[in-house]
């Protein structure tokens, strides 16, 4: 039985706006294990980044956690509900950086432009550990070397604008690793990078995961990234997890119609060039205008009006993975049997 590190249960994040409350995250479930990489995949508006901010209580105003639990399992077995902690409490601040570190999409704007990179990294060490400044600096330089920044000693005193995008993201990774966290949340860490840089940064993340023994929660829209690094996958659509499972299972046998459609819609290198892509009809609904019932029903090829328009079921056992679809509800599964038989033929 793998060791659970973080459990998110029925999490909701709400954004009150003039035109009504946007439920950016709406009843989300997620389980992360120690030493594993969990990829959270979704399109814009799926609430994946919001989930990451909610875990560390870093939501931008007026967003707030409207319900649910975020259970963090300490090494000693103690379990804390992060959703109940005050955003600026001592305990939350210990968690941030100390137990859960985070890196972001845009490494340029994620760092202060007027402080040296060395200062910004060693500051984290000084915040969480009782070490001298010299010690923190020495450790920072070692980390810079580890994440592949050439000539780390000289780079300690330079500013972020003097580095390339890939180098900046390495600095962010060094910062995240500096206090030996148990979990690294990476929000689209390679989206702003070129493909060669992306490969390097992903490779680095995989290396340090093994070396430091950490879990990674990687948020992305790119199934290629998922295929590269994930152990587990959680697919999100309009604020909900629609499918969660082991990466090989998800790729081999996606269970939720959305996952299936999404995987089919990506041009693959091993496919015949120029073939027609399987496309998902329609557009992602606006958060103000989400369909009732299953959020995907407006675009779902397998939709059957009766159960799908009802309130969506929980994540159900779908064999190799768990999916949030009535097809896997024993009470309704029979409705899809003829169609599935058709597909099987």
């Amino acid at each position: 039985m793998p060791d659970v590190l973080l459990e998110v249960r029925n999490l909701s994040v709400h954004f009150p706006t003039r035109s009504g409350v946007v439920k950016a995250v709406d009843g989300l479930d997620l389980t992360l294990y120690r030493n594993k990489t969990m990829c959270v995949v979704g399109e814009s508006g799926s609430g994946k980044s919001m989930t990451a901010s909610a875990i560390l209580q870093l939501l931008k105003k007026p967003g707030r956690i409207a319900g649910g639990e975020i259970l963090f399992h300490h090494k000693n077995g103690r379990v804390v509900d992060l959703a109940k902690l005050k955003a600026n409490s001592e305990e939350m601040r210990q968690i941030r950086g100390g137990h859960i570190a985070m890196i972001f999409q845009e490494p340029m704007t994620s760092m202060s432009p007027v402080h040296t990179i060395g200062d910004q990294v060693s500051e984290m060490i000084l915040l969480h550990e009782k070490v001298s400044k010299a010690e923190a600096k020495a450790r920072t330089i070692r980390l810079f070397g580890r994440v592949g920044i050439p000539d780390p000693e000289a780079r300690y005193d330079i500013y972020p604008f003097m580095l390339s995008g890939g180098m900046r993201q390495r600095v962010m990774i060094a910062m995240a690793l500096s206090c030996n966290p148990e979990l690294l949340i990476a929000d689209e860490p390679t989206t702003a990078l070129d493909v060669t840089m992306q490969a390097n940064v992903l490779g680095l993340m995989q290396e340090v995961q093994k070396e430091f023994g950490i879990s990674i929660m990687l948020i992305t829209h790119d199934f290629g990234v998922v295929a590269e690094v994930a152990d587990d996958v959680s697919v999100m659509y309009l604020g909900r997890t629609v499918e969660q499972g082991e990466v090989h299972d998800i790729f081999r046998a996606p269970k939720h119609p959305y996952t299936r459609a999404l995987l089919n819609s990506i041009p693959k290198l091993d496919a015949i060039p120029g073939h027609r892509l399987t496309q998902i009809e329609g557009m992602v609904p606006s958060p103000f205008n989400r369909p009732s019932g299953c959020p995907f029903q407006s675009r779902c090829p397998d939709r059957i009006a009766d159960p799908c328009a009802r309130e969506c079921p929980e994540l159900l056992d779908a064999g190799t993975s768990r999916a949030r679809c009535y097809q896997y509800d024993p009470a309704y599964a029979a409705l899809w049997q003829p169609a599935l038989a058709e597909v099987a033929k």
Partner: protein
Amino acid sequence: MTAQMPIAADPATRDNLCLDIRDLKVHFTPRKRFGHKQQNTVKAVDGVSLAVPDGETLAVVGESGCGKSTLGRAILRVNEPTAGEINYRPRGGDWVDLATLGNDALAQYRLDLRMIFQDPFTSLNPRQTVLDAIGQPLFAHGVNRREVRDRVADIMGKVGLRPEYMSRYPHAFSGGERQRIVIARALVVRPHVVVADEAVAALDVSVRAQTLNLLQDLQDELKLTYLFISHDLSVVRHISSHVAVMYVGRLIEYGPTETVFRQPLHPYTSALLSAIPISSPDLRGKVLRQPLSGEVADPANPPPGCHFHPRCPFATEVCRTQTPATTPVPGGGTVACHHWAELSLKGMPS
């Protein structure tokens, strides 16, 4: 400086082309500011020769700063070429060099060569209705309003938008729908060549497939030629028949997509291909990565010789001093590498 050979100089092969670009250069010289050091000229496109086959899709790939967007924009004369030829052959017409045409002479070809922009939010004027946006080229060329309405309605149907929405403003549409409007604006004049600059990069995954399918359908229906500029190699492999790889302003490899992806001849192409994320977790560990060290060179201050030599594992003395010539290779492609014949490089990871 070694002259780069025009690649499609052979008149026999020129028959099936619609664009024949020769030694195109687009240089940006920052204006000298008083009391400041004169900054280096940025050679965004530096001697690119390229043949675009008629009715097919040529993809231009490369990392950010390689000059692929500038190349596309120079062909449409959004950026003025510094030197070189942009030979274009209209349907049933004769070759003409777009690079040297004056604005008036250019105007008629502006309807033949069209552009699709990357960001559907900035490429539509928020103050124009869909009708005015799509119909803009028609209005500008004096087509009467009634006919414009008909043609806009027609093209809206083709790109999958309901013609009833033509009096709406862009803010009423989602990103994917806006991109359809942009596509409709490019196609309403029945063009010949379409330059698509990262046309699907800003779109969501589920919308991207729709848009790529749409582009392919329209190509078949309207016999379009695409110049497809992209950084996404999986998309490029999917959509293009030929591919041109650029590095710091220069074309380093060109050829039929399948050939280039399976058997790249330039070390940079090979490295680029090896960096594509795998498409299935089953392939983990089966793909040999060739991580590139260092950074993309600064186009204002590129290294001498082959611009790629500081990152190239095969670089020798000649690479550091001499610019490699563009050499035709078997299979109809070209490569600009001193050592291509001695190397045996790996293709795409699958």
